């Protein structure tokens, strides 16, 4: 990795060769994107159940935007667009799941890291359970929960991302919360409630 004056020159030439084709990204769009990445990673992790798979989704969405900046309508919000693209990419991934077992590695890792005997006092295990329970829900329920409960979107904003009427969002959310409470299990959820009171 020695760096001499030739190295500097070469890098400059490379830069000049490529910039003509690919310099169309507005700097302020890139800035906005950088600021949004932590939120998008959180959303994609919740949808997919792992940061590794989530990061793939976020990266694919960023690449799509950087390659085709016209993909974003002038009047649409960047965050809504990203939520929507990440979700669509995730749904495409779920569809492909029957063909190739996309999550084999992730499931193996979860099993790999799970302790032999569980200690309910360990917060990270408890949080792993929430993630596991989320992954048992339907994609529609999961995305409603992530957008509204975690990302803090209004029902109207969530309806735009999910491209369904607001009434549908409301009923999905009520069912999703009910289902997640059931999945977390009455008893352990009571325990969790008890701890925080």
């Amino acid at each position, binding site marked *: *990795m020695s*760096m001499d004056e030739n190295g500097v020159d070469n890098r*400059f030439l490379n830069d000049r060769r490529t910039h003509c084709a690919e310099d*169309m990204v507005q700097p302020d769009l890139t800035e906005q994107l950088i600021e949004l990445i932590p939120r998008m990673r959180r959303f994609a992790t919740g949808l997919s159940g792992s940061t590794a798979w989530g990061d793939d989704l976020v990266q694919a969405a960023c690449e799509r935007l950087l390659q085709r900046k016209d993909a974003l309508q002038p009047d649409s919000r960047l965050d809504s667009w990203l939520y929507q693209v990440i979700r669509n990419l995730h749904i495409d991934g779920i569809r492909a799941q029957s063909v190739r077992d996309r999550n084999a590695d992730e499931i193996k*890792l979860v099993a*790999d890291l799970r302790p032999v005997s569980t200690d309910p006092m360990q917060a990270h295990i408890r949080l792993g359970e929430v993630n596991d329970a989320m992954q048992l829900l339907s994609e529609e329920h999961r995305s409603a929960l992530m957008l509204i*409960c975690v990302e803090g979107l209004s029902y109207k904003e969530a309806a735009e991302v999910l491209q369904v009427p607001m009434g549908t969002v409301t009923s999905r959310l009520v069912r999703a919360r009910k289902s997640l409470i059931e999945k977390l299990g009455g008893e352990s959820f009571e325990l969790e409630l008890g701890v925080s009171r």
Partner: protein
Amino acid sequence: MNDEQHALINAFNDGQLDEKGREAVKSLLAENAQARSYLTELIELDRLLRSTFDPVKQEPVPMRFRSLLRKKRNRAFSHYVVPAALAASLLLAAILVLRQDTVDQQMQEQLLQMRQEIASLKHQTLENTPSGKAVSWVAPVGQTRAEVRPLATFRTKDNRFCREYEERLEDASGVEIRRGVACRTGKGHWPDLTRLPSGSAGSAAVEKSAVVNL
């Protein structure tokens, strides 16, 4: 409680009601114990969800995004200031010839940044990658490559998760392979317990020293 009341309490919890709606829910809560415990459940559920997924948002942006966006930003930048960049690079070349210490300083900075990138690669790989699978990183300039491969996962008596891993570093001067054991102290944080050059100690020796330190 009926479906409509459930939906109203959800909307109340999510701050989606107007003044009139809020008043309606408040009086429902005042007279109905079931409604109160349902709202408590919703509040706790949301808290659980946020505490599960918020840590991802707090993490530093992984390097794959930083390099993806930095590359794009630099290109956009160069579009506007090509003549300036040319002048700057000629000047830089001249300075590099005249001032060897500047080169040294710049290399030091680059080295430091690469070390940080490689450390971050290690932490993220140990957090997210199953044993046996390698994750690699290539420096944006120069010939430096790094690869981290978790080898095994185990739990200590005091419930810490530890992983043995192999780290392969490659640059113009050659290849270095090291093995280490790191234990998880928090999400995405895996400080080393031991790290040895692979040539001088096999996996067994690492495990032995790890056991001693535990």
